[in-house]
């Protein structure tokens, strides 16, 4: 026995030395896997090719969407988003694999679903409209208003926005301030832009909030919107503003690729998150767990703007906001954006039985109990737990399959997002892979193995609408 112990030690030591010396001689993978390469074609040539490719790019994405989802315009009767401008969409939109039902899936073990290949494709991570290029893509309503007011072009020549309008948040969304609850929505039904923010907000916010707002509305160079040949907008561009995606501090469903993963084909899609209720959030960024809104605001110039590539940023003209002045003011402004009103919730995030319906109360019971939603979405802390969790969806599918040039890999831990005002924020999950609240209920019913009855699922949706 002792001699075996000694020989294991010798073997282990030998392996360590071998590894060590192997490192010294090895080549890293090619630099392009981590760093953004410089384009090797003239801009005009790239633009011509991109434009020629665009119809096929859009058709391929439409095909993927129609294979995965029912995208019909089917609003819920009498349920509007918080501004009263857009109805909330009804029903499950993820399509089932042939020969399955939601109940039959719920009755199968994850490995069985994986091996039979029957996980609904709509539950898989959603590809960017053009994975190889990636970058920010804005919805048409945002493009139109910014063109009209600022004469700034947010239209890409290589891709269009890929979601139908009725499956995105209302636009422009209302703005509620923690500092002036009595005023209600202060947006005047308009989109805040660099052209109108002062008139709308003077007399309501403080000077430092105003300066923060100005910066959040000021365009700065971005990976696809800049003045170099490496851009996807026709003219040399002033760039994009923070609130071009976070319209009125909410979301217009503009999307991007995560800055936190390489290489390009592995980067997952990101749906713009709302900034409502940021004051209660202790971690920021779906993958990064940044600890303050100041950190996040500062670092977005490296990430949302430049994909986590500070080398590329330097060449295109990065804006580095001054931490004690500009960043702090931008954070102050973001920190006064409230959730939309939810009159049926008490101060601890629980339904007031005097105001809620039977069905909503039944939904809350499931949320807190059988549905296991409140394990992470804790009502008292604004329906968050300030943690990241790994749902391990890859238990249900074989990883590594490529869809539209995007390699489907495990999501890994993702931040718990708030559910306050959730009816205003379609599509759902960090990448926007689910179109309706009913989809999210089916998704979590399967992933968490909660085996809910149809009646319970309906109650859960009714409850989510009250948040």
């Amino acid at each position: 026995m002792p001699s075996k112990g000694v020989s294991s030690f010798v073997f282990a030591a030998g392996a360590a030395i071998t590894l060590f010396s192997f490192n010294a001689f090895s080549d890293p993978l090619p630099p392009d896997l981590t760093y953004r390469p410089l384009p090797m074609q003239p801009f005009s040539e790239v633009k011509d090719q991109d434009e020629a490719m665009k119809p096929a790019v859009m058709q391929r994405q439409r095909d993927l969407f129609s294979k995965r989802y029912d995208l019909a315009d089917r609003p819920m009767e009498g349920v509007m988003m918080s501004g009263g401008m857009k109805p909330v969409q009804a029903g499950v939109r993820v399509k089932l694999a042939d020969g399955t039902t939601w109940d039959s899936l719920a009755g199968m073990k994850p490995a069985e679903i994986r091996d039979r290949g029957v996980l609904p494709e709509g539950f898989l991570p959603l590809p960017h409209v053009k994975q190889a290029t990636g970058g920010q893509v804005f919805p048409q309503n945002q493009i139109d208003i910014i063109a009209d007011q600022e004469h700034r072009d947010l239209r890409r020549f290589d891709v269009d926005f890929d979601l139908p309008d009725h499956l995105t948040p209302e636009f422009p969304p209302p703005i509620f301030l923690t500092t002036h609850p009595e005023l209600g929505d202060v947006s005047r039904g308009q989109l805040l832009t660099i052209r109108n923010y002062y008139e709308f907000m003077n007399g309501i916010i403080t000077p430092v909030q105003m300066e923060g707002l100005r910066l959040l509305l000021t365009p700065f160079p971005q990976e696809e919107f800049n003045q170099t040949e490496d851009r996807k907008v026709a003219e040399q561009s002033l760039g994009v503003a923070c609130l071009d995606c976070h319209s009125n501090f909410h979301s217009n469903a503009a999307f991007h690729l995560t800055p936190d993963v390489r290489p390009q084909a592995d980067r997952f899609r990101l749906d713009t998150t709302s900034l409502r209720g940021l004051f209660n959030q202790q971690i920021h960024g779906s993958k990064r767990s940044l600890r303050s809104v100041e950190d996040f605001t500062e670092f977005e110039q490296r990430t949302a703007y430049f994909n986590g590539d500070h080398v590329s940023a330097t060449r295109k003209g990065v804006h580095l906001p001054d931490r004690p002045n500009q960043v702090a003011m931008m954070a102050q402004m973001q920190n006064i954006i409230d959730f939309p009103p939810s009159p049926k919730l008490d101060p601890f995030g629980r339904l007031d039985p005097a105001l809620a319906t039977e069905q909503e109360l039944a939904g809350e019971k499931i949320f807190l109990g059988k549905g296991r939603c409140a394990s992470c979405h804790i009502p008292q802390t604004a329906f968050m737990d300030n943690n990241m969790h790994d749902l391990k969806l890859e238990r249900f599918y074989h990883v590594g399959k490529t869809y539209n040039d995007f390699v489907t890999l495990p999501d890994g831990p993702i931040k718990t997002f708030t559910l306050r005002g959730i009816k205003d924020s379609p599509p759902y999950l960090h990448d926007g892979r689910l179109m309706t609240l009913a989809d999210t209920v089916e998704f979590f019913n399967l992933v968490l193995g909660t085996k809910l009855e149809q009646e319970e699922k309906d109650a859960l949706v009714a409850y989510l609408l009250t948040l």
Partner: protein
Amino acid sequence: MYRYAIIVGIASLTATSAVAQMGNPGFWGADTKMEKPGVPAPHQTNNTDRLFAQLAAAGGKAEVEFAKMTLQKSTSKSVKGFAEMMTKDHGAANDKLRELAEAAKIPLPKDITPDHTETKKRLDGLDGRDYDIAYVKAQIVDHQKTAQLLAWEIGSGEDAQLQRFAAQTMPKVLRHLQAAQTIHAELTGAAIR
């Protein structure tokens, strides 16, 4: 009962005047006449008082004009009810404001502001539900602005009577705002607190 009413009356008078007259002398007019040190004589105004009176008068005038237009155009019971409340409440407030402005020799505008003219033009072109929603939305914005304007006068004015007028008007304006928000929610399904 009678004695109780008197006590309440005195208490509220004292409270109002104490709150309304403790301004920052750094922002009083340079030519302010003093009743006694720290207390401007009645009807002494600074720029805040004068601009407040002018903006509030123009706003009040516009509210009444919009309300009259709404009583003719709208068919919604709640929207018409709101418009009636506007005519009544703003009519009374406008009279009171005019009286105070005259006493303080503040000239008041004869016309509504360009902002309101623009809104009026927009409302003119609308009918039915579109009109009701546009009117109520405009009312929400107007009352939001008015609430901020009143708070400005309460905090920064010099003329105690105008400040008291602003303080007395504030709860009414917030009630109007809430009423407009409620009607907007009824019409559109928007969320309210």
